């Protein structure tokens, strides 16, 4: 028997599901447009090299051979292709550049995990604005977009990948040690973290830094707590910047929806500064994530500072519903009155959705408003 199912981790969307998703997409597109972002569309297929140079995990990438036996991939995110576009097609363009997109991206996930391999990202990328001003702009834009969640509990959690990585650099830890630590911190695997840190040849004060780090998340007072373990002024400087950023966001009225996570580590290797994720009540994973990636475009040939974020449209669409507010009329007619029915429908369509239906038991055309 032939089975007609969709490939693993993909799904069909129907009717109201499409309505909800499109509505949300339009909502974000409109907000980003108001922030001055121009749309960009890139091919769904890219050469594997484009993603491997950005260190996307090999096993997460869909790979296909093209006609000349080069490996092409289904794009795994949009930040990498847009950075390629900026570095290769806007070499001499005046900065800043602002791009927005809404596109399907592909990642190979574990079998039967209930996760989607194809998902839609809506996002923005801001090129050529340094962190001192660009970070605030991008966070404010993210919070503006998140206001769609009004009525739900949600929080935008801000961290900086350098808090952990600078500490590792200062302590001159080896790459394998950094990888182990970040894996444990990322999974908040605290027993393993404590055991591993105890075996590292670093001072007790520095051990405390790594042991405390996973708990440095929560409201804005977290930054003050973090000062107790920040053992170097390069770490304190990161906290100062973060504190200032939060003060500015509070001044803009976002206090209720921001929080801090200093143990946050990037999902992608290319991030270089602040990183952030938004979480919403009723959704199991983050609904928005982003960060600064000042060294990515350089790998494509031109160095430009950059920051951006993507919203996971599918996750939000499962939570937010937009019942149709349009009037729908069911127009029934016997087949010999079809022409007349079509003419009536034409007029009705100016103000309502009209669904046609043939009913031979009728002698005339009838209209019924559908709920």
């Amino acid at each position: 028997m032939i089975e007609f199912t969709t490939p693993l981790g993909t799904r069909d969307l129907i009717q109201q599901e499409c309505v909800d998703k499109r509505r949300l997409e339009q909502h974000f597109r409109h907000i980003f447009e108001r922030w001055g972002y121009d749309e960009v569309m890139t091919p769904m297929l890219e050469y594997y090299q484009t993603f491997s140079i950005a260190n996307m995990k090999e096993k997460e990438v869909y790979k296909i051979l093209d006609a000349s036996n080069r490996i092409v991939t289904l794009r795994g995110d949009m930040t990498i292709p847009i950075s390629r576009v900026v570095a290769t097609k806007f070499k001499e363009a005046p900065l800043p550049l602002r791009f927005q997109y809404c596109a399907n991206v592909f990642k190979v996930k574990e079998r039967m995990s209930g996760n989607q391999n194809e998902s839609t990202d809506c996002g923005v990328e801001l090129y050529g604005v340094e962190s001192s001003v660009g970070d605030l702009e991008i966070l404010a834009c993210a919070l503006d977009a998140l206001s769609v969640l009004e009525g739900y509990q949600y929080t935008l959690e801000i961290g900086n990948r350098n808090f952990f990585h600078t500490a590792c650099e200062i302590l001159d830890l080896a790459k394998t040690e950094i990888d182990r630590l970040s894996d444990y911190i990322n999974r908040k695997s605290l027993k393993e973290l404590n055991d591993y840190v105890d075996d590292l040849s670093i001072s007790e004060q520095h051990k405390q830094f790594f042991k405390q780090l996973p708990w440095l998340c929560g409201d804005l007072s977290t930054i003050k707590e973090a000062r107790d373990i920040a053992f170097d002024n390069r770490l304190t400087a990161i906290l100062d910047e973060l504190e200032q950023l939060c003060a500015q966001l509070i001044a803009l009225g976002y206090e209720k929806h921001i929080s801090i996570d200093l143990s946050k580590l990037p999902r992608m290797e290319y991030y270089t500064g602040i990183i952030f994720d938004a979480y919403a009540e009723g959704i199991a994973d983050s609904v928005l994530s982003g960060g600064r990636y000042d060294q990515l475009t350089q790998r494509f040939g031109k160095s430009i500072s950059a920051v951006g974020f993507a919203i996971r449209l599918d996750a939000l669409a499962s939570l937010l519903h937009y019942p149709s507010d349009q009037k729908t009329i069911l127009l029934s007619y016997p087949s010999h009155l079809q022409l007349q029915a079509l003419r009536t429908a034409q007029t009705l369509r100016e103000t309502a959705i009209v669904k046609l239906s043939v009913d031979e038991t009728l002698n005339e055309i009838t209209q019924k408003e559908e709920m």
Partner: protein
Amino acid sequence: MLAMALTKGRLEKQSVKLLEQSGYGIEALKNKGRALVFPDSKKDISYFLVKANDCVTYVEHGVADIGVVGKDTLLESNAQFYEVMDLGIGKCRFILASLPEKNVLKKQGHIKIGTKYPAVTKRYFKQKGLDVEIIKIDGSVELAPILGLCDAIVDIMETGTTLKENGLIVFDTVCEISARIIVNKASFRLKRNEIQALLNDLKQALKEVEL
């Protein structure tokens, strides 16, 4: 309101006892009847009992905010969750065992390992720098080396009685296992205070048991 998934079976009794020692209202969990969800009589928590693998799945998808599950299950899983606390109950270990004359760590040539836990086995031999073939077995793993299906097994050992009865000996400890508290990533943010309070209560109860 917290939803908490508890692992059925071996860990169930011990985790319920620990909750009771923490002063939680777990009467419903003790007299289960036919219910599937058990509300706490004192705190704003509802419990449900599931198989270990499902406990991880429920927490990953946020249906449960928090779960109690053995490290053995977590090591085999690829799921996303935070593993915030070692409860120190349900202790046992993963071991490498075989017939006394078959020490695979010193064997030359192709090695076959039978196990219910392929991920743990793969990671262990990778760390040892050994290239082995893994054969997934679902039950009575001890039988496999005796019948010659594989050279050795990686399995959970509690008391060691089963191994001894089958004439197998332990060649190495792969890792120690105990029950862990896992937390959904979004719940960790949005229900932080409730979760923190629960963790503190459990920590306190564990301390009192030690004394």
